[in-house]
């Protein structure tokens, strides 16, 4: 970034790295899932998290918003910090952490309530807005994900009649409604058709640099298309990470090369 622009950046006093994982090892009971992961996530970037099934991608992702905490036997060593403060710090409010670190899941998971109530469910839970303000939030977020025109007349209807792609966009709108800084995406397009996938991918690009995104994906093409940086996990180890183009074109490690070229998977 240009030094002048950098000096004028409203985020200039905030650490450039939003999230930082330091010596992070994870285990469920006796089963080690991840060992010694060290990586930083720069504000406003999209990081793709790739690796074969069972490599620990989702576990890593679900650690960041502490979804693993209540899984029985979950243990962690090392630390993950959000803007310099550990996510496990005793002073940390879990609910506020999850407001700042949102999540989109493998499959759309609308709540059993109207479309509008779905969008503002988190806003209500965190008591950010009420009454007429909720309508404003709902419209704004549905516009942001490009759903507004298609469903503005169906706001009080069930979300389960929407198409899978629309449901996932609704869930994205819901996650964005509480104003997160980081968005965790756990294979968000794995259940969607190619056209919906394209829509979601385009949206993710638009979310930066306001948000920092970490996306778990099995789709290497998707990782190349949407991400700035890529991290490759293999058997619980962070093998390699770096700018996406570099990692795909000139992998430093043989295992990375084998994976991105499809020789292991």
């Amino acid at each position, binding site marked *: 970034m240009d030094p002048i622009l950098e000096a004028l950046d409203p985020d200039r006093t905030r650490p450039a790295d939003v999230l930082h994982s330091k010596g992070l090892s994870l285990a469920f009971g006796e089963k080690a899932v991840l060992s010694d992961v060290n990586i930083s996530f720069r504000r406003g970037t999209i990081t793709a998290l790739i690796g074969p099934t069972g490599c620990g991608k989702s576990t890593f992702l679900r650690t960041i918003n502490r979804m693993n905490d209540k899984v029985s036997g979950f243990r962690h060593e090392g630390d993950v910090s959000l803007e310099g403060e550990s996510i496990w710090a005793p002073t940390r409010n879990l609910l506020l952490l999850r407001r700042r670190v949102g999540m989109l*899941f493998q499959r759309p998971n609308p709540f059993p309530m109207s479309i509008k109530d779905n969008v503002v469910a988190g806003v209500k*839970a965190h008591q950010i807005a009420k009454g007429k303000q909720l309508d404003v939030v709902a419209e704004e977020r549905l516009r942001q994900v490009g759903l507004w025109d298609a469903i503005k007349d169906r706001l009080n209807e069930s979300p389960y009649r929407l198409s899978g792609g629309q449901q996932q966009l609704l869930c994205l709108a819901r996650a964005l409604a509480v104003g997160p800084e980081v968005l965790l995406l756990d294979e968000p397009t794995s259940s969607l058709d190619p056209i919906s996938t394209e829509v979601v991918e385009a949206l993710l690009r638009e979310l930066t640099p306001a948000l920092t995104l970490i996306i778990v994906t099995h789709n290497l093409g998707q990782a190349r298309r949407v991400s700035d940086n890529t991290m490759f996990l293999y058997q619980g180890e962070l093998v390699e990470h770096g700018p996406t183009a570099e990692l795909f074109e000139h992998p430093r490690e043989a295992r990375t090369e084998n994976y991105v070229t499809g020789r292991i998977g």
Partner: protein
Amino acid sequence: MSAFVPLVALVLTVLVLAFKAWPAIRVNGAHFLVGSSWKPGNVYGAVSTTGGVAHPLGSSYGAWPAIAGTLESSALAIIIAVPISIGAAFALTERLPRWLAEILRSAIEVLAGVPSVLLGLWGALTLGPLLANDVYPIVANHMPNVPFFSFFRGPTGHGEGLLTSGIVLALMIIPIVASTTRNLFAQVPALPKEGGEALGMTDWEVGRKITIPWVRAGIIGATVLGLGRAFGETIAVAMISGSLLNTITPNIYGTMGTVAATLVTQLDSAFADGTGFEVRTLAELAVVLVVVVLIVNTVARIIVRRTGHLAAPVGGVI
């Protein structure tokens, strides 16, 4: 074919009852539903004839106190039992460690199997007097004398009555509603619940806004099952209601009767009626009970249909 057995049994039961009750229905008329007198008349004396139907001189039957008592005690039981059952189901599926949940779950199932006569005896000998001596007076003395709350004021009796009946009925319903609701909760998929958690909802909010609505129709169904049990429960209520036939209790502690309890408490003396009219009247009372149960079931179905449009697809797409 066997699928039709319950339907045939229901239809036959109602038909036989209605046939038996028909003379009483004609003689008692509308007074039976709105009147408050329960007088067998002089069963050993002169016989009077109304519209060709013989009945003891002076007999007059109005079942409104029993109907009201059934509705009141069942409503009380539901009001007490449903929140407790949902709370218990929530604790069993979401909160407690698995070993403890399993123990408590078996305990609930054991409670479901306790014969109601035991609960009735316990209610009459232990729970009722305890509540009437130590709990009801405190509540009664602290209720403001304004509409609705004044129903909780006044003499608290000796433990036989509406509130005690409602509490004991609730104990009988809780196992039904709690174990059904527990099974429903266990079927709610993890994904929408995790969605709520990831959004920063508390466990309580996830339960209230996602888990419960997800199975709302099933919970209403379980409640109707419980309500059916409360309507029909006979012996325990006969033991703890005080079996009042002719008046509606002025407050929540007073003695009362229900349709089902009246059937069992009056049957013996009904056989003393040589004209058979009181037995026919009891049959009419039974028909009323069936009709009330059918009405409540129908209303519940309508509620399920009305509130169902936002609910998750049956079987769950997720």
